[in-house]
């Protein structure tokens, strides 16, 4: 009986993994399609679609814009979110819980609503420069990820460590640099990764704030799909997937994935 139940659980776990991974495998396979439609590479694979990515119209500016916005919004969110988390966890603020909820609330909001709201708002105050508007909007997207992760990380952080560092000869700033930040490194990494990825692949908010010259990669990709649906897009998606994997592997090497996911001790 127990063996049967265990076997069933295993089967379900494997099925769930397959269900989650199948689309990724299909897109990777389709990127090697020998024909100009999304075909599985049965009877001959082709790498030519990868070669075509670079020649997509407006690809490089879109990629560069997305990377810029993602990096900048992540960096700003890390600073602002960490300081906000410190205030919420340690500041003995009246209504700290409400602040925390407000900081994280954009996560609960549909992206479309957020996008329309920001478009209206920016128009209303006459703020029409699309690059800064995009950055501000992405800050709203990334800040909740950072705030949530850093609030969790900091509530688990043992502030006696700071006192230990002080008695061992650290000044206050030194103790933050030498103890608090390294001890919180896993949280910073998780926060940064989530934030970067959330910004990099954001569509519903960006769509309202881009113009002809300022288009992020996801928006450009949708445009390609509408104009010429060939496996070049599958190749590009596969590369993005690989890039994400590389990020995760580096993160794992740096602090350990189990420490990041909070699943291991």
């Amino acid at each position, binding site marked *: 009986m127990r063996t049967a139940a265990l076997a069933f659980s295993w089967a379900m776990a494997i099925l769930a993994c397959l269900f989650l991974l199948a689309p990724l495998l299909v897109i990777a396979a389709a990127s090697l399609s020998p024909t100009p439609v999304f075909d599985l590479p049965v009877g001959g694979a082709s790498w030519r679609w990868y070669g075509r990515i670079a020649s997509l119209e407006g690809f490089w500016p879109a990629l560069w814009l997305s990377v810029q916005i993602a990096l900048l919004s992540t960096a700003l969110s890390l600073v602002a979110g960490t300081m906000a988390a410190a205030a919420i966890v340690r500041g003995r603020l009246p209504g700290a819980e409400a602040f925390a909820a407000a900081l994280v609330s954009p996560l609960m909001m549909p992206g479309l609503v957020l996008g329309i709201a920001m478009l209206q708002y920016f128009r209303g105050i006459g703020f029409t420069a699309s690059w800064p508007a995009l950055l501000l909007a992405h800050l709203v997207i990334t800040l909740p990820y950072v705030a949530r992760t850093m609030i969790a990380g900091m509530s688990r952080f*043992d502030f*006696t*460590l700071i*006192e*230990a*560092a*002080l*008695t*061992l*000869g*650290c*000044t206050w700033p*030194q103790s933050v640099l*030498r*103890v608090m930040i*390294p*001890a919180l*490194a896993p949280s910073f990494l998780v926060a940064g990764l989530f934030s970067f990825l959330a910004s990099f692949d954001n569509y519903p908010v960006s769509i309202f704030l881009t113009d002809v010259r300022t288009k992020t990669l996801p928006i450009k990709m949708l445009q390609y799909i509408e104009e010429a649906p060939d496996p070049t897009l599958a190749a590009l998606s596969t590369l993005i997937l690989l890039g994400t994997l590389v990020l995760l592997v580096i993160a794992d090497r740096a602090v350990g994935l189990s420490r990041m996911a909070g699943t291991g*001790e």
Partner: protein
Amino acid sequence: MEGGGMAAHLSVRGVSKRFGATPVLTDIDLRMARGELVTLLGPSGCGKTTLLRVIAGLTQPDSGVLELAGRDITRLPPYRRNVGVVFQNYALFPHLDVAGNVAFGLKLRKRPKAEIDASVKRALELVHLGALADRPVRALSGGQQQRVALARAIAVEPSVILFDEALSALDRKLRETMQGELRRLLRQIGATAVFVTHDQEEALTMSDRVAVMHRGRIDQLADPRTLYDRPATAFALSFVGQSLRLPGTVVDADGDGSMVETAVGQVRAPRRFLPGSPVIVATRPEHVRLAEGENTLHGTVTGVTFQGSRSVVEIDAGGAVLMAELPGRQALPDPGTPVSFGWPVAETLLFPAEEAA
């Protein structure tokens, strides 16, 4: 050893601290000689941890002066005091391995690499952890973490080492082993140390002198033997060791002491009080004999427990339940029988009644 002389290594004078309207420390005086081990003993909320934090510089006192190794440290931040602290939860740095933790303070002092390595090695060997230098601290047991915390504190050769309930997280058996080991080690390196604990056994075992703290004050500062034999207050009596206590009233006093009337008989005590004062008469269980003597009282035996080398007899004395400890294999009374008992005048302790907390 007594720390009362001129050359106090650590001196705390008139230190007071309030948290809001609540006084946590009131006019604390404590002088320690170099190499002395002193315990701050008391129940939770008595101010012992606050006093430790004041010495470490983690809490600023409202008033008073602190001197350490000939320097006024009252206004110095913790990182300029040269104190070592072993925290209750050890507070090891999770991102560093064992050697990294121990080297932390030495690196901040900008010592040469070779010197740091040598000091780390020596400190780890002192706590018998030489083989675990490159382990991550998460992989260690509670006892091992405790030793790392100790090695980290002693590696920088602090002027005083402070232990905040440092052994209380260990299980009983390990705690007892560590008590002996820690005491030997601190003697070996000639450390001056302050322990904070609520465990009276630990206090008696570990220290040269014990400060019994109660409601933000030091009730008594004495060596363990004196503390046990001659507690200065009713609180010190009840907090350290077992005791028998009876309420009474002083009926007579002369040059030799007082005569006290209790519900179950009259008792002589060597301490003088004004006739008419309400008092508490007390002694230790091992001084009681089931016979008429200098002080004779009357009660009823309510229980007898044989414990091998000794027996404990429970006596109802006019409503107060007293525990007497009798050595060896003497004949014991049956429960329910009336009994006369007493103890020597010299071992009779007397306290004002209002002091009994």
